[in-house]
């Protein structure tokens, strides 16, 4: 797994900071064309063949950060024109994720390769262990016949010299649902019917070629027009910073939001409704229910495990309930969900109460552009403090725990956690689907409440976090502990 702070994620944030700064100065359309030159300067060391190539790719990145689609990229159109289009846009548009063709490395198809560490030894465990007879020794080295090879990896596991390596395609490898494949030009292509917007590919592509469409420009535009812009911050957003509760609220107000609602309050509503729904379903004789707060998971069920669809809770997500609170308390406001999740951006496009969704990276860029130090912001705690359980929604296991806390009779509960929808997670999900469809037997150990989070570790490990999930977990724990227990 790529670490969170790498040159690709840094570049993303540098572009966002520059866009936000220009916009606050009222110079977005005038100054945006300078960004590629600033980030690929004449005296720098180019990443690609030359600075002109770098600049052209950055130009594409800027377009995506402006929230414009790369699908209908127009070579003739200036960045200033894209900026104008972004500033005049009424509503954000999908798809939330796209491939930046120019940045895509067109990685060679995933394969096993024999390196020159091969000694063509006497034992030849690669050859002996290959069930497909895909290996022969030629010119003093093992050779893999790609026609016969089925990528089982036995040769790699058995070579005493570590001479055989696997060359993966990182985005394809990261995608749990097989939604990414090579197009005719060798570049990657997303099948949006299969894609669950988990954001794994975006996090794992070493070339930063999987790119999300930002909505930050839209949010700043409303701030500058003095609209009531309400920040709905997810518990995973709070867990990014090492600060006392309330400071993030203060920093958000200083950054230009008019009001702040903790999404953990929405999580409390989700948990209480989900607990009631669970009790009711079990009473009706249903055997299984799953959580529904992770939109990547819900999409995974819809597109890939339809046998499980009837089990997905009908309760809405914390984001939805938090937006409901905001729209009720602050009529005519613009709601902005802030979290580390790409799938939420897609969920936001379909939820009338959620106007915009921005990532943690975008929130960070907003703070940097405005020169706000979160650690020094005056604490402005909300009027109502969520429960520890509501705040713990951001970690794996937290949602099941919260449902349990709101359940009157916990003896009926047998929970299971699917921590992360990687390929193994999808397999487990498919098994539960089969159990529900009756094609696999139900046993005494079969759970009746299944919590699923697409990101391993929970939302604190989402694709757009800025803090290592391990650190975020300890910060989340502190944040949760200061919650107020439901009486």
């Amino acid at each position, binding site marked *: 797994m790529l*670490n*969170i*702070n790498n040159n690709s*994620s*840094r570049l993303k*944030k*540098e572009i966002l*900071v520059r866009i936000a700064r220009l916009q606050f100065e009222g110079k977005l359309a005038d100054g945006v064309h300078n960004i590629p030159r600033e980030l690929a300067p004449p005296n720098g060391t180019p990443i690609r063949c030359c600075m002109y190539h770098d600049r052209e790719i950055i130009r594409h990145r800027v377009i995506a950060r402006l929230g414009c689609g790369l699908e209908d990229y127009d070579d003739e159109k200036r960045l200033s024109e894209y900026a104008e289009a972004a500033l005049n846009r009424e509503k954000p548009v999908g798809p939330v994720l796209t491939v930046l063709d120019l940045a895509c490395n067109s990685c060679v198809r995933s394969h096993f390769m024999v390196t020159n560490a091969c000694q063509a030894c006497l034992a030849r465990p690669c050859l002996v262990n290959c069930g497909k007879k895909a290996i022969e020794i030629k010119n003093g080295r093992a050779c893999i016949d790609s026609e016969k090879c089925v990528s089982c990896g036995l040769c790699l596991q058995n070579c005493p010299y570590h001479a055989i390596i696997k060359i993966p395609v990182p985005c394809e490898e990261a995608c749990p649902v097989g939604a990414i494949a090579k197009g005719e030009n060798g570049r990657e292509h997303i099948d949006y019917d299969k894609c669950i917007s988990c954001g794994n590919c975006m996090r794992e592509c070493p070339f930063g070629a999987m790119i999300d469409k930002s909505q930050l420009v839209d949010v700043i535009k409303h701030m500058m027009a003095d609209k009531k812009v309400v920040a709905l911050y997810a518990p995973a957003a709070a867990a*990014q*910073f*090492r600060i006392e509760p309330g400071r993030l609220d203060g*920093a958000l107000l200083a950054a230009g939001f008019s009001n702040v609602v903790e999404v953990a309050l929405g999580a409390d509503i989700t948990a209480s409704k989900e607990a009631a729904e669970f009790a009711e379903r079990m009473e009706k004789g249903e055997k299984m229910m799953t959580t529904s707060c992770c939109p990547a998971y819900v999409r995974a069920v819809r597109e890939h495990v339809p046998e499980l669809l009837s089990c997905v809770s009908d309760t809405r997500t914390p984001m939805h309930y938090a937006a409901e609170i905001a729209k009720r308390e602050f009529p005519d406001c613009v709601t902005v969900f802030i979290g580390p999740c790409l799938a939420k951006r897609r969920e936001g496009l379909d939820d009338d109460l959620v106007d915009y969704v921005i990532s943690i*990276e975008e929130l*960070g*860029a907003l*703070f*940097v552009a405005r*020169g*706000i*130090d*979160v*650690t*020094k912001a005056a604490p402005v705690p909300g009027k109502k403090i969520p429960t520890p359980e509501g705040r713990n929604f951001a970690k794996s296991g937290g949602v099941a725990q919260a449902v349990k806390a709101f359940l009157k009779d916990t003896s009926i509960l047998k929970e299971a956690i699917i921590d992360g929808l990687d390929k193994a997670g999808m397999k487990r999900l498919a098994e539960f689907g089969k159990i529900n469809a009756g094609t696999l037997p139900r046993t005494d150990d079969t759970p009746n409440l299944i919590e699923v989070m697409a990101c391993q570790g929970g939302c604190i490990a989402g694709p757009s976090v*800025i*803090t*290592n999930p*391990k*650190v975020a977990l300890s910060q989340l724990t502190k944040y949760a502990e200061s919650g107020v227990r439901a009486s």
Partner: protein
Amino acid sequence: MKKHTVNICTGTTCFVMGGSELLLLDELLPDDLKDVIEIKGSPCIGICKNADYGKAQADHAPFVQIDGEVVDEASIQKVVDHLRRLNA
């Protein structure tokens, strides 16, 4: 022997631009350096706003000070390399 002081800026600009990773420095420090340094976290040390620093300051966050000397675009590896040089 006097210990080297590593002062990590935890101001938001540094934190957002990659400084969050430096919170793991303590954990990821190679054994040979463990006893010769002292790690401190500090509120914003102000380099991002200091025009005298030269280059476009905020663009070179995150910042770390090692015995008072500023390391820009700091990563764990960069800090370790710097400490190795000092300790050589």
